[in-house]
């Protein structure tokens, strides 16, 4: 078969869906139908391979699987299924995977309809000129309303949904039709096999034996073992050791051709030499222009990450370096805290992104972490007319040196059934939001638009939305720029010492109330010490709230244990282990969760 006609039988696509709308189940069915996995190998939700993904039921890392599909007419097709994350924090990764595709299967829950995050991803796909195949999933549910959902897809997204596929991925209904439509609707990749090589790196992994494993999609030309290649951004040159595809296990091939999606290794030991978004070309006969890369998204949420055990500092740096390799939206730089010692100030796309990085460091790298409360970047103009950017609240200058402070605002769009408009508005008002707009999408669903300070949504906004709307609300946001705000820095003192890692920035109108809540909360979170510990909240030199952690009075096993010494030992070991997970801050032992607590606001 000529490479030309082979290319005509390649289809690169991804699946766009809201969390829980059945993307992973559909991916599994597609893998089954195309016999990529035998029944024996079939684990539920194969694509979500990372432990964390399985636990949270979401996709974080991109995966690209090659599948063979035998069409009715006897032609053999090659599919590349490129997985996309569904959460708002990962828009960046979505745009990366979409750039490697010509089409997308849009999965919408037949009962719940379109959610705000799906909407955001569909728009990304449309911007990339992707062909969209709408699928209405879970039609087996008693509450399924496929006709209403079709109407909604047309009204909200503006694409033709008259021939949307009705499916139940769980039961395998509609899967054949989806495969068929992938062949008929999605175009084969463009590009010429004879042009100079252009391959986009859309993800990468680090393997201690093989170096960087780059996930690539070949847009022009071909790449094979032994080729001398060049990274167009960094200019670094390498020799290819291996190319291959995921079926779904890595399967080496002699060559990857235009339209192929797979991987490549070239003994790349320095992870900085192979950046996601870079274009690979041949040293001989190089391409003139690189492919349009990705716009690097700027982190919006910052926090300090410190090892509980100071001797793990270097391990933490290595872990961050590895994680940054395939997640260029993660930023970090070294910082020092008086309270916590040496650590890093890290930037993330959002809270989920931050939590996932934190959990991966703790689990995959085995480092116990203390994470400070997340902060946004504030722009401060000082009285001597200096402009400074603050991503760490403890660095905020004294209030008398501050002329004005600006903070980032977002346009937050909340999609919710009309019954919950009241609760949603209440949450937005409490989060200092300005009401902008409200639109009815259909008889029941409403889009509510607010401008809200980013700092108010980074922490528990989405959780409160979910809990106040019985899980119905969906939410998306975009940055709209900086605005003046009447903000002050609040310091927390333990036993009379200011703890820099506990400082935070708060609107002046809420300062008094927040201060009171936080000292009470810390009083409950920090265990009793051998001496009494005052907990104070202060603005500048002025103490605005105070509570006291009472001294520990009795902690001695005085139960009748008989000869059961093993049990005594276990109890002591447990107490000691608990202590190890705390950080000695000055003379006070503080548990990890205390550092996050400053952002938790009680609703009542």
């Amino acid at each position, binding site marked *: 078969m000529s490479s030309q006609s082979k290319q005509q039988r390649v289809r690169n696509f991804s699946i766009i869906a809201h969390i829980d709308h059945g993307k992973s189940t559909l991916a599994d069915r597609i893998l089954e139908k195309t016999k990529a996995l035998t029944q024996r190998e079939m684990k539920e939700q194969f694509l979500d391979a990372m432990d964390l993904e399985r636990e949270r039921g979401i996709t974080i890392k991109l995966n690209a699987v090659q599948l063979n599909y035998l069409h009715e007419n006897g032609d053999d097709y090659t599919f590349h299924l490129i997985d996309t994350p569904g959460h708002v924090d990962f828009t960046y990764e979505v745009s990366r995977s979409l750039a490697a595709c010509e089409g997308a299967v849009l999965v919408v829950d037949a009962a719940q309809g379109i959610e705000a995050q799906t909407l955001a991803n569909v728009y990304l796909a449309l911007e990339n000129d992707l062909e969209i195949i709408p699928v209405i999933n879970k039609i087996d549910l008693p509450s399924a309303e496929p006709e209403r959902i079709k109407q909604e897809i047309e009204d909200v997204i503006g694409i033709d949904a008259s021939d949307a596929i009705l499916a139940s991925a769980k039961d395998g209904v509609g899967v054949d039709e989806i495969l068929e439509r992938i062949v008929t609707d999605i175009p084969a990749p463009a590009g010429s096999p004879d042009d100079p090589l252009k391959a986009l790196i859309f993800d990468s992994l680090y393997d201690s034996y093989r170096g960087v494993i780059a996930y690539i999609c070949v847009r022009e030309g071909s790449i094979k073992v032994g080729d001398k290649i060049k990274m167009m951004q960094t200019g670094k040159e390498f020799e290819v050791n291996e190319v291959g595809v995921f079926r779904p296990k890595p399967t080496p091939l002699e060559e990857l051709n235009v339209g192929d999606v797979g991987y490549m290794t070239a003994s790349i030991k320095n992870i900085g030499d192979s950046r996601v978004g870079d274009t690979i070309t041949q040293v001989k006969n190089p391409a003139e222009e690189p492919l349009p890369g990705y716009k690097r998204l700027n982190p919006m949420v910052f926090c300090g990450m410190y090892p509980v055990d100071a001797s793990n500092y270097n391990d933490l740096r290595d872990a961050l370096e590895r994680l940054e390799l395939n997640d260029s939206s993660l930023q970090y730089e070294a910082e020092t805290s008086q309270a916590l010692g040496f650590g890093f100030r890290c930037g993330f796309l959002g809270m989920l992104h931050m939590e996932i990085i934190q959990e991966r460091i703790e689990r995959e790298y085995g480092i116990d972490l203390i994470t400070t409360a997340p902060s946004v970047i504030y722009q401060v103009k000082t009285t001597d007319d200096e402009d400074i950017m603050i991503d760490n609240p403890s660095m905020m200058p004294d209030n008398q040196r501050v002329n004005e402070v600006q903070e980032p605002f977002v346009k937050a769009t909340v999609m919710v059934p009309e019954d919950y408009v009241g609760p949603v508005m209440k949450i937005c008002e409490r989060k200092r939001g300005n009401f902008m707009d409200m639109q009815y999408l259909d008889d029941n669903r409403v889009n509510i638009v607010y401008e809200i300070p980013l700092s108010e949504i980074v922490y528990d906004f989405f959780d409160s939305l979910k809990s106040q709307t019985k899980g119905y609300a969906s939410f998306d946001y975009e940055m709209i720029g900086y605005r003046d705000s009447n903000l002050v820095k609040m310091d927390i003192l333990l036993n009379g010492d200011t703890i820099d890692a506990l400082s935070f920035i708060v609107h002046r109108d809420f300062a008094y109330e927040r201060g009171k809540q936080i000292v009470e909360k810390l009083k409950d979170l920090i265990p*009793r010490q*051998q001496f009494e510990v005052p907990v104070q909240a202060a603005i500048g030199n002025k103490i605005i709230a105070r509570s006291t952690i*009472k001294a*520990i*009075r*009795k*902690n*001695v*096993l*005085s*139960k*009748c244990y*008989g*000869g*059961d*010494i*093993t049990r*005594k*030992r276990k*109890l*002591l*070991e447990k*107490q*000691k282990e608990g*202590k190890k997970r705390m950080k000695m801050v000055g003379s006070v032992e503080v548990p990890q969760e205390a550092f996050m607590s400053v952002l938790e606001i009680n609703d009542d």
Partner: protein
Amino acid sequence: MRIPSAYIHIPFCQQICHYCDFTKFFYTEKQADDYLDALENEMNHYLPEPVQVETIFVGGGTPTILSEAQLRRFLQMVDEHFHISGDMEYTFEANPGDLNSEKIQLLAAYGVNRVSMGVQVFDDAMLEKIGRLHRKKDVYTNIEALLNKDISNISIDLMYALPGQSVHDFEETIDEALAFNLPHYSSYSLQIEPKTVFYQRYKRGELSKPPEEDEAVMYEMLQRKMNDAGLNHYEISNFAAEGYESQHNLTYWNNHFYYGFGAGAHGYLPGKRLINIRPLPAYVKQACENGRPVLHEEPIGRKEMMEEEMFLGLRKAEGVQKAVFQERYNRSMHNVYQEAITSLQNRGLLQEDEVAVRLTSKGKMLGNEVFQAFLIDD
């Protein structure tokens, strides 16, 4: 190596106390008969020949719940496996109310010379609340009966930090207990443990312990009153007149070896701690099959021994003697624990002289803080 002590567990009760998480089952005559068969097999296995020990402690459950015939059989069994003499300490645990003069007669005849009674509180309403069957008058009757049969080495257990118990309630209990002028008292604070009635109620929010402050005040008051009565606070939970310290309990705190017989019993033999099977049918089956009803063996090396030497030994008023440590482990205590000792001294929890290290009075209140520091990091 000679094993100086033996613990024998009788896991039957007429009623299960709400706080108890020891191995215990409702008494039926048939099950107790089977149990004694199993116990005999276990003793035969470990003690093919009678041995000399310094202490025997028969605990429960409620050992005195056995019928007279069973009690006789049990005492005979012990007699056949150990050389019983007047010099040794042979203790039976008893519940007030279970002891009649026939049973006491039997105990005395077989050489039992010490009785430890689970009195808990002198307050009938509280006894009801914690699920005990006996009433305060039973304590008077039993102590009198014991004294009549010349068993005067009596100890009673008292509990504090019970739900709804005030400092004043506990004070009354202590006063009433001290009025017996007994040579030994133990006093334990309530721990709410899983698999107890109290735990379930606690989880449902129906039960709460007195605040830590009250518990601390109760413990301090206990120490003061015992001291005023001329009793020596020789271990965290134990008080005795000179020469009446429980030798059996000191086996534990001195980190010496002991046999453990019976369901759920714990033993400590050179190089290992043993834990017996708890469920009755499984224990009986295994003991009858091979005489070795062990659920789990925990290897104890030098590191564990040193740790236990410290966290058990420091429970005693006399503390841990440096010479003993040096002799047993061939290392000086300071060589192993310099950092812990210094830091605990600075915190005012530990004191040291030429002979020993021991808890300060503050250290007694915060013993766990001290004990933890002697666990060696891997």
